[in-house]
């Protein structure tokens, strides 16, 4: 069984967003890039499952749609423990474009894992689109994944609870918090080995994007916080009631 992990290369979560080019783009210079947090959890879980599978899971591959600038992030995926990597050489235009590209390589895998949302464009779309391109089932909001023998059970979050779903390969798992506790951190040995692991670059397919991000804005500055004296809590209640009208 082969697992494919879709890795999105995103700005570090603490990055202050600055706009560039007359607000038509987000400034890339000076930004620290990381693996999208959910993708890192998906990769970690896939490696745990592979190690526990007694050889049934033969490989864990990472794939990213992006230019050469995403390779350091992909190498980090290899350092964490992925066996090999595929970079689809194209600037991501939108979720549809990205999913169509990944669909080309994903056909060869039994389980494809994506994150629930990339922390840059927040589309929550690539995983679901990919499953439709591949015409396979997808399970979204996945917070647990167990494989025993050939039996695969995934837990998905629903309103007010969760459901355990039994699913056969091939399928797409769209994962969120809970899939594993902590992402793995690359060890020195992993970093050394990552340099020798294959990172294959493939050409992009002809695909038209369906949406276009035309301009950006920064949120309006918030009014200053109104401070209430700690000795006068009832003042807060009356402000919430009469001024903010939320009580």
């Amino acid at each position, binding site marked *: 069984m082969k697992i494919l992990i879709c890795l999105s290369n995103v700005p570090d*979560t603490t990055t202050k967003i600055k706009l560039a080019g007359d607000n038509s783009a987000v400034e890339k210079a000076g930004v620290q890039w990381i693996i999208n947090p959910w993708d890192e959890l998906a990769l970690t879980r896939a490696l745990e499952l592979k190690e526990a599978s007694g050889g049934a899971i033969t490989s864990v591959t990472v794939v990213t749609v992006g230019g050469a600038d995403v390779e350091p992030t992909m190498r980090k995926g290899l350092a964490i423990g992925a066996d090999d990597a595929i970079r689809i050489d194209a600037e991501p235009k*939108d979720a549809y474009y990205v*999913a169509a590209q990944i669909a080309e390589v994903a056909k060869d895998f039994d389980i494809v894992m994506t994150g629930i949302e990339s*922390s840059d464009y927040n589309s*929550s779309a690539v995983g*679901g689109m990919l499953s439709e391109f591949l015409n396979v089932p997808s399970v*979204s909001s996945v917070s647990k994944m167990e494989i025993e023998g050939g039996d695969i*059970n995934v837990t998905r979050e629903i309103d*007010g609870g969760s*459901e355990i779903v039994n699913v056969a390969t091939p399928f797409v798992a769209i994962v969120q918090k809970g899939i594993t506790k902590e992402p793995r951190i690359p060890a020195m040995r992993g970093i050394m080995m990552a340099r020798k692991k294959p990172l294959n670059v493939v050409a992009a397919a002809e695909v038209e994007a369906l949406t276009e991000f035309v301009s950006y804005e920064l949120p309006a500055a918030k009014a200053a916080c109104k401070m209430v004296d700690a000795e006068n809590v009832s003042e807060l209640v009356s402000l919430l009631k009469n001024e903010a009208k939320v009580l």
Partner: protein
Amino acid sequence: MSVLVYTENWDGKFKKLSFELISYANEMAKQLGTEVIALSIGNVEDVELKSLGAYGAAKVVSVNDDKLASLENQPYAGVIAEVAAKEAAKVVLLANNNAGKAIAPRLSVKMKAGVIAGATEVPSSYDPFTVKKKVFTGKALANVVVKSDVKIVTLAQNSFGLVEDAKDAAVEAFDASVEDVKTAVKETNKVTGKVLLNDAEVVIAGGRGLKGPENFGPVEELAELLGGATACSRPVSDEDWRPHSEHVGQTGKIIAPNLYFAFGISGAIQHLGGVSSSKVIVAVNTDKDAPIFEAADYGIIGDAQKILPELIDAIKAAKAE
């Protein structure tokens, strides 16, 4: 031409979320000179279906099929695509919740229609079709153009509100062709009778500043008093002081209540990513320089454990007035 809204039901009932979606669709339909058609999937009684008319739905298409008992996104997307074609929908709207996030992308590929996830406003233009949405977890906004003929939009929760526009909605049962279900639900675990975090108008959250799980009693009490839900920061759930379902923030739940209380929460950027869309934020923190005060509307510099019971008393007193 029409604006089609997929209105999810919960055990046969609609929620505020469904009515908000219809309100949003109605505004869009007015601007486009067309009408709102709601699509309901599952077993919902006619009176409940008709209630969507109160916010402007002209017609409600009701699809009921045993195969749709569990939410499997593939057949759901198939049904929505079929109804969208039948009703010549120009725009298809869904909520940006678990169900919407699962269905909208599949629908997009099926219909070759571009999707905007988490729209916060009605389109600023219809030609080109341009909608604003949050990007970088709320740190910026983007204007996104949909280039396909049919447009799919998911609405960010609590970003439009309810607007009444009473219509006598016609209910039409429709026999859709439903694809086979390929996954099997083995077990469902649901809490009932509690206000769900995603639906709550008031959310009371506690952070590491509360020092330990034993100090969350007043947080729960305040939530109960206000008919709200409880939440927490990530380290609090990581340390198992509170259940994981309460974790809010960039890697937890993203919520947008009317009123959000942060007790002993520093206000890290990843935390704010999940709560900054709240209408009013109240922060209580011992550190006057805590970043939460930059995001808050009202603040108290003080010990949360002392303020919480005082606040409960003050609210009780105000209610008694």
